[in-house]
């Protein structure tokens, strides 16, 4: 694994660098990268600290509004807009975290869900979010006043740099002593406590980092697409990011990247897939598959939880490890 992993990441990076030149639609790939970042940030919390937040939509969507407002109404440059969005995510995460870590396990999930629903209602009623219409017409502007982001290709590479840097930051965090303590808390909280670690502070810090990076993902999404809507702050976005992480593989670095790709592609292409199935099988009902995204999502959830809890990358990693174990035993 140690030898293969860097090669795979380099190949992935090369693929992303050349993607716009081999026919990939840049805006779609950008959207994918935003969600990959979102899922990776979420995984830092669920996969590495063992905390299930059901409120990450608040950070994604809330920051999307803040960044959009900053760039559109205050006329800030993109880098400041992104900073404002990230900061908003961190602040919101700090508040959520302070409240939610007062309870454990299942209550933690319910509290974050309820707090995020509160943010949803505020977004629905507040003036600056545009309510049901959302915040529209956010200009991309010029990065540092120099680089014009209105060009999709320029925007693409700027985004690629930011997302790769954030991913490296997450990877670094996981491997740092801080990340090891988080894993320790996940495996055995009372033990971490008895070893003298201030568990609550570690949890809170992990929560804030995860929320800040989710906020960055939301802000980037606004910058790329030019709008922020209620759907990003709705609880289904929280469910979506859980699904991405679960499908890809909890507690693996590459899992959320793959999971985000699978889920976003599925949601965008399911209509086409249904029509293909209808043509192949002759069953008319498949033509309506495009309208049944929730149903398919639900099915994947059920199948994943029952039979596939390690996720795709989790399975791959354990398969490779088993293979290696066999090889050392025989040779």
């Amino acid at each position, binding site marked *: 694994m140690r030898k293969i992993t860097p090669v795979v990441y380099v190949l992935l990076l090369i693929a992303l660098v050349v993607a716009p030149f081999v026919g990939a639609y840049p805006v779609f790939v950008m959207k994918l990268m935003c969600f990959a970042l979102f899922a990776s940030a979420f995984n830092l919390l669920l996969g590495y600290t063992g905390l299930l937040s059901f409120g990450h939509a608040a950070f994604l969507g809330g920051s999307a509004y803040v960044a959009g407002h900053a760039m559109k109404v205050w006329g800030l440059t993109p880098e400041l807009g992104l900073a404002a969005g990230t900061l908003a995510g961190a602040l919101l995460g700090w508040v959520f975290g302070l409240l939610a870590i007062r309870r454990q396990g299942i209550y933690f999930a*319910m509290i974050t869900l309820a707090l995020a629903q509160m943010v949803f*209602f505020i977004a629905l009623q507040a003036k600056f979010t545009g309510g049901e219409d959302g915040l529209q017409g956010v200009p991309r502007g010029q990065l540092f006043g120099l680089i014009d982001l209105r060009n999709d290709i320029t925007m693409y590479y700027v985004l690629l740099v930011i997302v790769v840097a954030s991913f490296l930051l997450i990877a670094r965090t996981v491997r740092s002593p801080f990340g090891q303590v988080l894993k320790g808390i996940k495996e055995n909280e009372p033990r971490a406590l008895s070893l003298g670690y201030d568990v609550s502070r570690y949890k809170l810090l992990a929560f804030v980092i995860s929320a800040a990076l989710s906020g960055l993902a939301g802000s980037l999404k606004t910058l790329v697409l030019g709008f922020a809507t209620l759907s990003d702050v709705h609880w289904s976005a929280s469910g979506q990011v859980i699904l991405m992480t679960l499908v890809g593989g909890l507690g693996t670095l590459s899992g959320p990247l793959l999971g985000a790709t699978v889920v976003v592609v599925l949601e965008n292409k399911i209509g086409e897939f249904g029509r293909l199935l209808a043509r192949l099988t002759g069953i008319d009902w498949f033509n309506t598959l495009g309208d049944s995204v929730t149903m398919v999502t639900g099915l994947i*959830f059920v199948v994943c939880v029952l039979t596939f809890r390690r996720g795709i990358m989790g399975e791959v990693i354990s398969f490779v490890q088993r293979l290696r174990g066999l090889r050392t035993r025989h040779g």
Partner: protein
Amino acid sequence: MGIFNLSNLPFPALLSQLLLGLVNGSFYAILSLGLAVIFGLLNVINFAHGALFMIGAVLTWMGLNYFNISYWAMLVLAPVIAGLFGMLTERLLLRWIYKLDHLYGLLLTLGITLLIEGVFRSAYGVSGLPYDTPDALQGATDLGFMILPNYRAWVVVASLSICFTTWFVIEKTRLGAYLRAGTENPRLVEAFGVNVPLMITLTYGFGVALAAFAGVLAAPVIQVSPLMGQNLIIVVFAIVVIGGMGSIMGAILTGLGLGVIEGLTKVVYPEASSTVVFVVMVIVLLIRPTGLFGKEK
């Protein structure tokens, strides 16, 4: 300040919002009661509770529109059908995850929720399915100081009767004693010859039937639609956090109380009525992190 504002308001408006709050509070009470009973024995937080509430309401609508079955018959039929469906899902799906972390229970029931809502959505869309108040409960009674809509009064009475019956059965009867013992120590109860897996299935079926019962009651007052349970379940989660899941009576009282608070907020400051339950949750978390009636499990 709130009290000052209240005294300036027309009294009947206040009373009618209070009643509306009690109606919603009754739904909260039945749903959080069901969640507490299920969590006690299964250790699963049933995210699907909102969707099962919806099933109760939609079944009621289907009964009348396809088979001409009356409201009163559906009041029994819908919970029975939903309960059987619940027992089936428990046997087929939930059974496999009891030994895992609690979180998987939440995720599995979330998946079931999306499946159920997706199926009903592809059949009926997202627009409302109109359901009329049954003839016997139409109209209103003039109490002198306020006009009391008969149906709303019925919802409150029916819900409270169901809630207190459940409380009585669980806290005061032999059957309830088995259930409480199963919550404390399932292995020991099994050693005494009680069929615990069957008890778990029946308990889940009962919790689901409760949710469907609330759904039937809601059909004439809340717009029947495949997504009607979505926001409700999150409010009920907040109520469960406020009350704690340790006590049956706690769940009932918290549900009713929060409904009333929500109703009063509609009079005083309508903009906050959709968020007031969450605000109360935050305050309770700050002052009494284990919840009002809570003992952390």
